[in-house]
């Protein structure tokens, strides 16, 4: 049996005082739970959008991405001239470098309807950035008109094609030779097709230039800064995977208003939670002020009263945090099940940030409670 530490007696009293006050305790919990729920939902939505927006960067998996400096998100690549590829191959420290086509096309379905799709063209020589196959072999991508379809949430929009299914892409005929899966799905809710680089540029008409990205594998990480400098001299930008992700995230966060809105909503949830629980806790302390004064007269020390209040605030906040996070994840699980495209994802930074905010709420609530309780003069209790 676990012996209770004697000191915990006053904490037990503190918790009984609060939890037995059903209406206040419920109000506190509802306030904190609601605030945590909203904060977690907002931030999860945001992380989901960011992760989706960077999906191709993760899926292709190259160490270095060369692009036009004006590119700010993966899907609006700006084609580069072919010499960038050959120039990159002669930069010291480059182990190999390959072109990547990344663009969109219109797929004409059997019923005559058109469906937009992302087309990824992999380097013919290496198939660098190839997806994981779940049906068929990747080598079949070299067959006539061959395309591999990614089986993700958008797959059904192409009428769930199988190996051998035919459709038209920009008036060229295409044959499905395999189904693949990728680590993360994209933000735009359209299906993804993989083919070879050469087929992609012949199927999809483009202006002068054709290379969307040049992917570089350095000999070692130490070579990366040198490669970046050399590419910069050509007037282009070489970013590591993390830098590219950061660039895209920054774009969505600061340039699209998504970040601002999410931040505002999170701040509002925080303030609402703060005021509801601060207010309720303060009322609770005020109602019990005479009792705390009596305890002080009986012999409770200042720091004992302070720790009682801290325990009340922290325990309540943690319970509210647990309920809020539980509610948010339940909501997300149900949403994901009903809406395959649902983007929100619960991340550790979100959980951490929400915990910090809840602790600020607890700290604020206990601060006003502590101030009140330390001001009590037991003499005033005597005088009634």
């Amino acid at each position: 049996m676990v012996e209770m530490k004697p000191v915990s007696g006053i904490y037990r009293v503190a918790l009984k005082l609060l939890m037995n006050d059903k209406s206040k305790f419920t109000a506190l919990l509802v306030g904190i739970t609601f605030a945590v729920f909203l904060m977690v939902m907002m931030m999860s939505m945001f992380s989901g959008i960011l992760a989706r927006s960077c999906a191709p960067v993760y899926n292709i998996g190259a160490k270095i991405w060369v692009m036009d400096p004006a590119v700010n998100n993966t899907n609006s690549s700006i084609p580069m001239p072919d010499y960038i590829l050959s120039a990159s191959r002669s930069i010291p420290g480059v182990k190999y470098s390959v072109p990547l086509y990344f663009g969109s096309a219109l797929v004409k379905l059997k019923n005559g309807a058109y469906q937009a799709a992302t087309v990824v063209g992999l380097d013919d020589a290496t198939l660098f950035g190839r997806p994981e196959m779940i049906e068929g072999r990747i080598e079949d991508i070299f067959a006539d008109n061959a395309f591999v379809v990614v089986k993700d949430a958008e797959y059904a929009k192409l009428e769930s094609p199988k190996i051998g299914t035919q459709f038209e892409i920009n008036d060229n005929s295409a044959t499905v030779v395999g189904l693949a899966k990728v680590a993360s799905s994209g933000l735009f809710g359209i299906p993804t097709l993989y083919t070879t680089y050469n087929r992609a540029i012949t199927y999809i008409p483009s202006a002068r230039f054709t290379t969307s990205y040049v992917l570089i594998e350095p000999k070692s990480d130490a070579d990366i800064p040198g490669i970046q400098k050399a590419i910069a001299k050509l007037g282009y930008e070489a970013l590591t995977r993390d830098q590219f992700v950061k660039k895209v995230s920054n774009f969505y966060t600061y340039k699209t208003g998504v970040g601002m809105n999410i931040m505002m909503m999170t701040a509002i949830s925080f303030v609402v939670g703060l005021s509801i629980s601060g207010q309720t806790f303060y009322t609770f302390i005020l109602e019990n002020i005479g009792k705390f004064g009596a305890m002080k007269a009986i012999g409770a020390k200042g720091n004992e009263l302070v720790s009682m209040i801290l325990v009340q605030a922290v325990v309540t906040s943690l319970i509210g945090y647990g309920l809020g996070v539980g509610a948010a994840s339940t909501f997300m699980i149900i949403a994901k099940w009903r809406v395959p495209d649902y983007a929100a994802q619960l991340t550790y930074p979100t959980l951490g940030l929400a915990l910090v905010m809840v602790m600020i709420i607890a700290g604020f609530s206990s601060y006003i409670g502590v101030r009140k309780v330390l001001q009590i003069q037991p003499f005033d209790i005597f005088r009634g």
Partner: protein
Amino acid sequence: MKGSVIISASNLVKWFGEGEARTVAVKQASFEAQYGEMLYIVGPSGSGKTTLLSMISGILRPNEGSVIVENQDIWSMKDDDLADLRLNKIGFVFQDYHLFPRLTTVENVAIPLILKKTEWNAAMELARDYLDIVGLKDRADLQPVKLSGGEQQRVAIARAIAGQPDILIFDEPTASLDGDTGRKIVEFVKTNILNEKRAIIIVTHDSRIYEYADRIMKMEDGKIVGYESGYENSQQHEK
């Protein structure tokens, strides 16, 4: 032990406010309380009884003078030591009880024990024993609000004696009770709670309970103006 000094107050002065607004609530008060006695402090409202009581029990710091409790000069002690002294030596029964409405009766009684860091279950068991002393063992698990005024007063007494104090302080213990109940409680305190190792000090202006006093100390306008024996006083009262 009986008859020797437990509390000695010398030249206590307490004022409130400053300048024009200053009221001197207690003026040069000196007195002693002895082990084994029930000492009353009586006097009209506003005469300084509560102020004096607070100064001798370590709750209100005097502007002048000193208080010696069992050979300790309490107003030279640090705040936390003074809190410990109150916890270990003094039991309080407040006029409006100040029981926690959200705790059960037995938990309320256990508060001094818990502050003394008694383990929870042991504290509850002891608290039940003290409730038994005041005749409320069967009310242990009820909330105080379910009890009558007299019963709540007895819970407050159980809480005050749970810390086994040497000194018990009552401020107007019968003020919110009907005459009969008030008298019964004070009689109970005199026969069951008072013993040779403790002193009980009661502030009151309820003459119906004067008969239980060993000594009655009279205050007027912040000064101690004289003593009577409780018995004499109750005779006068009955005439």
